[in-house]
């Protein structure tokens, strides 16, 4: 062989060659022995080709600008590159450019069609609404619009009932 295959993760000669078919697409990974060991390829219980593909596909320069940090947890594209994991839920928005091209290879589709945490979402909607009403109530009191204030107060108690929150006043 004129030029031996190089490891996808470092530049050593690749001696471990993996092929797996995910969603009718053929994925090939070439690794040197130490990377194969490090990634757990030799340990079938802990090995996931999907994980590895994710890291390998990250290895060429990430498409997101390198200065991009997650506002919530401070994660950088480099951190993601190294661990293959995100830092917090917010990272999914921060690094959406990085993630999108990967999802196609990784999953059957790119949109969630399964279970929805309905109670949690309902609760969140009510809490957001409550928060907004409380701000409006404060504003109304400050600017002495007492008729509006009374209206907001009624609405607040209705939303509290719906959310099952007892007034803390």
């Amino acid at each position, binding site marked *: 062989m004129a030029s031996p295959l190089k490891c996808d993760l470092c530049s050593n000669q690749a001696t471990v060659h993996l092929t797996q078919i995910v969603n009718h697409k053929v994925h090939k990974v070439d690794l040197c022995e130490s990377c194969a060991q490090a990634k757990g390829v030799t340990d*079938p219980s802990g090995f*996931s080709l999907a994980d590895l593909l994710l890291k390998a596909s990250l290895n060429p320069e990430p498409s997101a600008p390198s200065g991009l940090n997650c506002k919530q947890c401070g994660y950088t594209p480099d951190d993601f590159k190294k661990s293959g994991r995100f830092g*917090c839920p917010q990272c999914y928005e921060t690094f959406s450019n990085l993630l999108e091209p990967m*999802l196609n290879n990784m999953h059957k*589709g790119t949109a*969630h069609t399964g279970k929805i945490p309905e109670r949690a979402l309902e609760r969140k909607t009510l809490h957001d609404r409550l928060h907004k009403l409380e701000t409006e109530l404060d504003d109304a009191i400050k600017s002495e619009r007492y008729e509006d204030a009374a209206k907001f107060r009624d609405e607040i108690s209705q939303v509290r009932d719906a959310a099952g929150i007892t007034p803390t006043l």
Partner: protein
Amino acid sequence: MSLTVDSLISSPAELTDNRASNCAVVLMTRIRLARNLANHSFPGRANEAERQEVLEICQGAVLKTRPLKRGLLVAVKELNPLQRQILVERHLISRELSESKSGSAAVINKDRNVSVMINEEDHLRIQVLRNGFQLKKAWTTINNLDSALEKELDYAFSAELGYLTACPTNLGTGLRASAMMHLPALVIAGQMEKVVRAVNQLGMVVRGLFGEGSDASGSIFQISNQTTLGESEKDIVNRLQSVLESIVEHELNARAKLLEDEPAKLPDKVGRAFGILSHGHVISSSEAMNLLSLVRLGVDVGYFPESHRVTIDRLFIEAQPGHILFGSGKAELKSDERDRLRADGLRSEFAKFSTPGYQSPGLN
């Protein structure tokens, strides 16, 4: 009576209590869901204070749910290495959790078939185990538990991407469903590679039971879904169900063919395995797995009474290194001491077995 780690590990596990299994080829079914709290860093990123905060929020919610109200809460850092190893061998906690930093815990129910790991790779890993082939029942149980938790917890969820997980490979449903399958005839017939390839093409993954080499010891394989996004939970479960059903059919066909084409091969293998288990004095764990696997196949084809299968399934777990050490009552064992103790235990168990009857083997 309060549940303690020692009472938990000295009682038989769900997998080992496999009475009247509806399908002998499937040893155990398992489903797990990965869930995270909104507005908190994932455990790998969180500092100690945040991990602690997440632990408190989650354990409070978990201990309120019906299946885990009387469950045992174990903080990983309070477990000794042996207890950790045993819980891993029982599939009650993952290897990753057993090696994790402070702030990690698991809540395990009395029947040892529901467990919730806190601060593993994700804030919550909810798991339901069922003996035999009970994928749909396991889904119903875990779905209800998840809905109960959601009453208390604000999950990280995106309308487009579903449940948000630390690793994007779990994104969407966060669901991994798997079955432990006993496929000795497919291994003997050299067809496993073909099966693995076919299963991969259907988007499912094949792994060994305890990760001891891809030629899974004991011919036990774990088959699970590979992808979690783009398909509903029901679709994933149904698709896996039909893949598993067809593997069961192939295994049963391979057994029938083996008995027909080489009538002496199987009785010979089973008989030799029975001989070593009954009379051996040094047996490693992977040898034990392979021998037990053959005797289990012997039960399936009628050489031994059906009732012996429960014993073998229990021994699959009890022959693991952690369980041998636990049984010895010692703090440490060299591997040759362990192999002798394992053989001693197996000899006394197999002394109680009936003599194999090889006459006209019938399937099932």
